[in-house]
């Protein structure tokens, strides 16, 4: 029997929710632990971070100098590096400090800012090293995580839908909350993966899976404006868990210029 692939799970600046998604696969967890060697996973396993990883799952964004060095070390010791979640793929909610806010934020929160060391910006893992696959979402979908693990074990590419949340919503047969109820919804520009969760709960999508490819954000903003949303509110809607994703950041800035 060939040795099991070695898995490493790594945390950068984050809430731990995406790596927790693995522990939330309650029915599959012991099977996953049987199929893979969970060699490093500090949240769940007491073991040293040594050696080479066949798969590295990386959660969180880079916000300190130590993290900026650490990601290169992980990359050098990993065959396949996968970013899991909005922080790792675009910087996360903490990227709201980018654009010159960092020093002010530090002073606002801590009486002795000099005792802390952080970078000016929170950045995506792909700003630092090559990334082989990414899972979107704040948090990721555990179904996508299991698909990714199964695909890597089988040596095939993971099947993760590239289309918009809006299409998932149509496929689920849900009534459009924007057309029928006039609720603001980012579904048309947001990457699929959640199963169009929010519209199923009578709420507009708030974009936690980040921009889909070729997102027409300007057109959506015009529609949101027609529903009565102010430019400031539209800018805020694009400035949450994927605020540093280029398409969302550009649209928020465009709204700010109005």
């Amino acid at each position, binding site marked *: 029997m060939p040795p099991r692939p070695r898995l490493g799970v790594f945390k950068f600046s984050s809430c731990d929710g995406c790596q927790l998604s693995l522990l939330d696969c309650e029915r599959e967890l012991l099977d996953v632990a049987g199929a893979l060697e969970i060699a490093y996973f500090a949240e769940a396993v007491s073991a040293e971070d040594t050696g080479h990883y066949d798969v590295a799952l990386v959660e969180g964004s880079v916000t300190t100098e130590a993290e900026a060095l650490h990601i290169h070390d992980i990359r050098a010791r990993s065959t396949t590096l996968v970013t899991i979640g909005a922080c790792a793929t675009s910087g996360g*909610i903490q990227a709201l400090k980018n654009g010159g806010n960092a020093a002010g934020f530090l002073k606002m929160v801590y009486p002795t800012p000099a005792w802390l060391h952080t970078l000016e910006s929170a950045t995506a893992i792909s700003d630092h090293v090559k990334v082989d696959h990414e899972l979107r979402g704040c948090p990721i979908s555990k179904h996508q995580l299991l698909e990714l693990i199964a695909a890597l074990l089988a040596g095939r590419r993971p099947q993760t839908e590239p289309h918009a949340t809006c299409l998932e919503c149509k496929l689920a047969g849900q009534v459009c909350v924007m057309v029928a109820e006039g609720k603001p919804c980012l579904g048309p520009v947001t990457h699929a993966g*959640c199963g169009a969760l*929010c519209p199923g709960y009578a709420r507009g999508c708030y974009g936690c899976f980040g921009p889909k490819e070729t997102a027409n954000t300007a057109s959506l903003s015009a529609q949101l404006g027609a529903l009565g949303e102010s430019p400031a509110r539209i800018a805020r809607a694009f400035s949450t868990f994927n605020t540093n994703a280029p398409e969302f950041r550009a649209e928020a800035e465009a709204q700010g210029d109005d």
Partner: protein
Amino acid sequence: MTERRIEVGLLTRVEGEGAVRIDMRGDKVTRAEFRIFEPPRFFEALLRGRGYEEAADITSRICGICPVAYQMSAVHAMEAAFGVGIDPSVRLVRRLLYCGEWIESHVLHAILLHAPDYLGYGSAFELAAAGHEGLVRDALEVKEAGNRIVSVVGGREIHPINVRVGGFWKLPERRALAALREELLAAIPKAVRVLDWTASLDIPDHARDYTLVSLWHPDEYPMNEGRLRSTAGLDCANDAWRDHFEEFQVPHSNALQARDREGGEYLVGPMARLALNFGRLSEGAREAAGRAGLGPDCRNPFRTITMRMVETLHALEEAVRLIEAYQPGERSAAPVEPRAGVGAAATEAPRGTLFHRYEIDGDGLITHAQIVPPTSQNQPAIEADLRAFLPSLAGRSEAEITHLAEQAIRNYDPCISCATHFLDLRFLDA
């Protein structure tokens, strides 16, 4: 006199990034530091200028394990600011949602993270492989039942999407909850087995005379509502945290710590809730606690593994009771009219009292935010535990001392992501 330094560079099996440093001279602990180096994410700063309605979703991203707690404290604080009264069905469903989070968070910690310490294993996977697979499977199924509550009511397990100021976007259907009830009933005997197993463990014999703080409610075990009480006689409204406690910064932690206004350390969490609310546990939970030899007077923090399972059993039984009593209301949320004002609220997160306070301007935007998570409050007591318990191991090996130190920290299920990033912005203004 032997001098030694024990350092653990990265604590494992905790949520977030922390370390520990202990200096001993003979049998004296001369320094005990629980160091939190989790990078700060500045939530209290980035909330400024955001809409009141965004606080629940933004603050849930502080912690992937207890997002419901952040959502609950946030919406209660906003409702206090605007004078919004919630409907009985909303009150019930919020409590149900909180039960789900207590179950998933408590079982995650008790069995997946903490239990390996008691038997000398490095993970629950090793525990399962070493003849305890039945136990780990039982625990995972109970955890799943908790997560099922959160995902049916909240939309998904992590960062649920259904909570809003005034109520929910959509109230659950009775039919969906009826199916959930069956799953919860099936989980109860498994939770009892896990609880009884934790009571059979070899527990280090240590205790201290803690000041314990939690919410207290006359009719129910506290989650969303109640007065703030302590074993030292405190009894105040739950929005008055700042009158009795304060935060402060230490150089070795990126998380602010907290103390009472006289400078004393205190503890929040399961031990505090049991001490102040034992009589309002569900019948099954009280019985199981009795069988395990646990009552309101237990002050051994190494028994918190069983205390978490007692609260898990309570949450399962309470969730069943809530589902049976549930009648969907006419509307999913009470109307909200934002206005300039201040609102604060504390609720009971799995790890203890979580306090939020917001100042809102006339446009409904947040101008100031303060968030005090349980782990911030527990840091000084955790360090005091290390100073009190480690001298008993003075002649022992470094490995034994390190093991007890790590286990003593895990007693508190420290949520380091939660703890890092918080402080009252007023320190600046002063």
